[in-house]
């Protein structure tokens, strides 16, 4: 009898597996392989092209035959100021992330915890602002920044970037705060904390994963920004990596220097890809905010 009660589940699984047949059992796996290929093949092509010798640039072999890092050397040695561009990207995206988190954290906590009259209006306003087309913000700001001599400054890139980063961060953080039980603060307040202390000493440490995920997502969004960075600058020394790569002239001139552009693309993308691989679970949870749990 003991075997009879333990076995059914396994048996059932076997029966089901036999029922669906080999095609339907393998179909999802084949589908998975196709999806992975679809997502990674173009990226792989970028990496492969970057590791070719500039002379073999137009070779279409799947593996770079004589492996070479010449393209990477070109990217950093030439007069294109790519290294400086990376630093500028880091400064702009980093500042945007920090500013957004500091400002957005308080707003998100308020929206998640306090009950007040125009809460839905505020939520609607915040989500609406993220729908506005970037160009309709950039055109008037460009004229303003020309007038107040902000062109070619970091703040000219940082301030407009808040328009998409702040709503993003507020929404993400609001979702995280909502998932935390309200009893946490109540317990803290019973123990004699003021609401502000409860927020600082209990909520912030517990919300760290959420804040961290929001930071990554915001940073990636700011790091990938192009239109603002392109419009607000015209000097190489202040441009971000994205803008500089798009305007590469290369060391040989004439043709578009795809080899060094691919190498630069790899340099810009690899940190993001590593971050994505390391924190994929968190990022997915952050992007779908609650849907996964």
């Amino acid at each position: 009898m003991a075997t009879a009660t333990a076995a059914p589940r396994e048996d059932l699984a076997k029966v089901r597996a036999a029922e669906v047949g080999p095609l339907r059992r393998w179909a999802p796996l084949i589908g998975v392989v196709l999806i992975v290929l679809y997502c990674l093949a173009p990226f792989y092509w970028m990496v492969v092209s970057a590791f070719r010798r500039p002379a073999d640039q137009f070779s279409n072999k799947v593996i770079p035959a004589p492996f070479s890092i010449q393209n990477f050397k070109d990217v950093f040695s030439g007069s294109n100021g790519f290294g400086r561009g990376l630093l500028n990207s880091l400064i702009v995206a980093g500042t945007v992330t920090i500013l957004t988190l500091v400002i957005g954290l308080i707003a998100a906590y308020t929206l998640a915890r306090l009950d007040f009259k125009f809460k839905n209006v505020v939520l609607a306003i915040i989500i609406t602002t993220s729908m506005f087309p970037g160009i309709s913000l950039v055109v008037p700001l460009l004229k303003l920044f020309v007038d107040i001599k902000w062109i070619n400054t970091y703040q000219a890139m940082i301030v407009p970037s808040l328009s998409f980063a702040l709503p993003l961060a507020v929404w993400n953080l609001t979702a995280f705060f909502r998932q935390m039980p309200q009893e946490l603060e109540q317990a803290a307040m019973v123990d004699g904390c003021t609401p502000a202390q409860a927020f600082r000493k209990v909520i912030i440490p517990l919300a760290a994963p959420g804040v961290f995920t929001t930071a990554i997502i915001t940073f990636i969004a700011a790091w990938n920004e192009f239109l603002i960075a392109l419009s607000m600058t015209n000097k190489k020394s202040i441009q971000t990596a994205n803008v500089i790569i798009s305007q590469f002239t290369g060391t040989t001139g004439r043709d578009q220097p795809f080899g060094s552009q691919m190498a630069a693309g790899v340099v810009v993308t690899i940190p993001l890809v590593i971050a994505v691989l390391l924190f994929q679970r968190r990022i997915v949870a952050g992007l779908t905010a609650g849907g996964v749990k």
Partner: protein
Amino acid sequence: MTATAPVAERPAKEPKQPKRQQRFNEGTGRLAAMLLSPTMLVLGLVVLFPIISALRESLYTSGTKLDENGFIVKGSTFVGLQNYTDIFKGEIGDRFWNAFYNTTFFTVICVVLETVLGVVMALIMHKAFKGRGVVRASILVPWAIPTVISALLWKWIFQADGIANDLLGTQILWSTEGWQSKMSVILADTWKTAPFIGLLVLAGLQTIPAEVYEAAKVDGASVWKTFTRITLPLVKPALLVAVLFRILDTLRIFDLPFVLVGPHKDSVETLSMLAYDEAFNTRYGPAAAYATVLFVYVAVVAYAFVKILGADVIGEARAKKPGGGGKGRRKKREIEEAPGVAMGAAAGGGGV
């Protein structure tokens, strides 16, 4: 002795009780206003102010001009609605309608392709038990690559003697004017965002309880019927919001055609590119007019989408009203997922 005095005073204080309660509510409102003010202030400065000043700007024209006495006038002059009427006339009109058509074309084709592909991907991922981690990681790669880099990457792939022509056995000059450059933009955009829609739909799929499917099986529903009658209606809220954000994102498409094909190409010029071009040449008046037209277009599409299809962007509104406070919150969790998905979709767009 001392106790009598407070007792005597008490009746006098009692009527004030309800007022105190009101004041408590007011206090919450004021606290909320105070805590929200930094965010609202920043958004007002970087979003509301530019929109209004674009409206104002679009009524002026800048640059040097001659007035009726032959004197050179510098700076901007008020021209009323001339910037707008110019948009729809003659050569400028042709350029505008072309950009308008391209923008709409890209939006419709890309969003349809991405949605179908994304849903298919989500269904596969939902069925697969092996290799989920690998898929999830690889699906995030196109999302994490900056649009500019992916544009360059696809430009390289679509090079005259590039890998695309090599694999297809064709000799197409992809980045020249014509249908092929449109195709390349659509392909690149779909590659970058379809997996992402898949990710969001997958999150929606995972909230559907298995019992629902078992019940359908017991009732003898076919695979197709199960999909159209159960899966689609249940992922619809998440899907609609994701699609809405993709639509709004593609309507403002700039980076991809700008880098992949280039500026001043009729085949791929979008409204954002047109406005950028005008602003780049310091014709702020017309640029602001184009930007405002795009803004209105986006607003109309968003409004129509929400009204007609009932996309619940602020799931909060529905979740809060019946519950009326913290207690209803947990029950309504499913509905509240929508805004999170929404922002995910917005994040996916990045700088497209």
